[in-house]
């Protein structure tokens, strides 16, 4: 039970290998950006993290709707696990963004539209995880989590518009736009490769996390049975 299956080990190994190749490609092999220099390389971690994080949140949203409909705790495990991984990747996104921002913009943090929305989404899903941890029973936690995830999507979309207007009304784009005007193929390919690697890592995390949830569920059940007999 405790040992990983062959397929799972293969999956994890593939994720590690792909990431190692991708990061070597982006961080060492590719020439540095002409304008930003070496610091631009952080993009090879930053952009894959943020796309994975938003995918994870989308998965949580879909699984939550499905859970409210079917009431299957296995589906809820997917939603919960995906949200957890999403929070980790959002954290990486915010951290790498700040590290990149300091030498490029001169500040760790600025109230740029994208930064602000990402930070809001991060707080939303940290709240989601806290509700699940504080619920008095797992069934209730699953329902509350699903409701929060359903509210989350329209809130993210409205947040996006609100923050966009707020920044554009008061501060025309004086900042360097992340990503730049157009991306050269020499940068694009390692970036795409890293995104794929990160998605493989995400799928590995998700499967293992769901499996862990199932084991925990089974352990709780058997404890309950033993308690009844004794």
């Amino acid at each position, binding site marked *: 039970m405790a040992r990983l299956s062959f397929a799972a080990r293969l999956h994890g190994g593939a994720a590690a290998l792909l990431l190692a190749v991708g990061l070597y490609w982006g961080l060492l092999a590719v020439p540095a950006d002409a304008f930003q220099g070496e610091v631009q390389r952080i993009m090879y971690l930053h952009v894959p993290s943020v796309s994975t994080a938003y995918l994870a949140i989308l998965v949580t949203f879909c699984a939550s709707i499905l859970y409210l409909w079917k009431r299957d705790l296995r589906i809820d495990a997917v939603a919960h696990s995906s949200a957890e991984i999403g929070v980790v990747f959002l954290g990486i996104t915010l951290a790498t963004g700040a590290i990149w921002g300091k030498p490029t913009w001169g500040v760790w943090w600025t109230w740029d539209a994208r930064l602000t929305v990402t930070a809001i989404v991060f707080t939303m899903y940290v*709240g989601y995880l806290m509700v699940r941890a*504080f619920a*008095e029973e797992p069934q209730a936690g699953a329902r509350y989590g699903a409701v929060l995830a359903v*509210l989350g999507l*329209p*809130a993210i979309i*409205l947040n996006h518009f*609100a923050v966009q*207007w*707020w920044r554009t009304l008061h501060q025309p784009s004086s900042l360097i736009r992340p990503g730049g005007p157009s991306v050269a193929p020499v940068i694009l390919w390692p970036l795409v490769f890293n995104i794929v690697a990160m998605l493989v890592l995400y799928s590995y995390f998700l499967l293992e996390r769901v499996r862990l949830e199932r084991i925990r569920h089974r352990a709780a059940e058997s404890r309950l049975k033993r308690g009844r007999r004794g």
Partner: protein
Amino acid sequence: MVAELLRRTWAMTWKDVTVELRARERVTAMLFFAALVLFIFNFALGPDREKLREVAPGLLWLAFLFTGMLGLGRSFQAERENECFEALLLTPGDRESIYYGKLAGNVLFMVIAEALILPLFGILYNLDIWGLLPSLALVAFLGTLGFSAVGTLLAAMTAHIRAREVMLPLLLFPLTVPVILASVRATEAILLGEGLGEVSQWLKLLVGFDVIFLVVSPLVFEFVLEE
């Protein structure tokens, strides 16, 4: 169908109002807290009148929202005493009427608090708001409606989890950033003397938020209440 829903909603709201009229707990606390917040801001920012005027719209909304948060938290926690919650669930009919009834009560109490905060704010910070009251009231109502639409749902949820006093603001503020942003910007423009036409974009955002969450929240409300 609609008449039935309205009747049930009215019964729910009337129950909350009656409780409030007898106990006078919630609104009294909210009003006193609101007055205190306006005082504390003054200490935090110093007597510089120009500076105060610049941040006035933000202060006003912080006072509104913190006060509203107090009221929202009480709306379902009060039902925990004497198993009132179970009795609520036993009432026949759609759960939606519980949501709408609670929402109407929450909006009402928040509006009462705002009706005190607004003039007090004008007096304490020496702002000439009297001619602007109708447009300010419109923005305040739209903002309050959106904030309470999400808040009523989350109050029902957090009433049943540990650390409930902390969790309500933690969940509510990130979700309602669009309301806060739109309300503050619209209020700012109104205080600067611009007409409602100038802030139509923010008003549209407020209306959009209100409509979306007035539809989505009652739909998922029954999942929160299940036992």
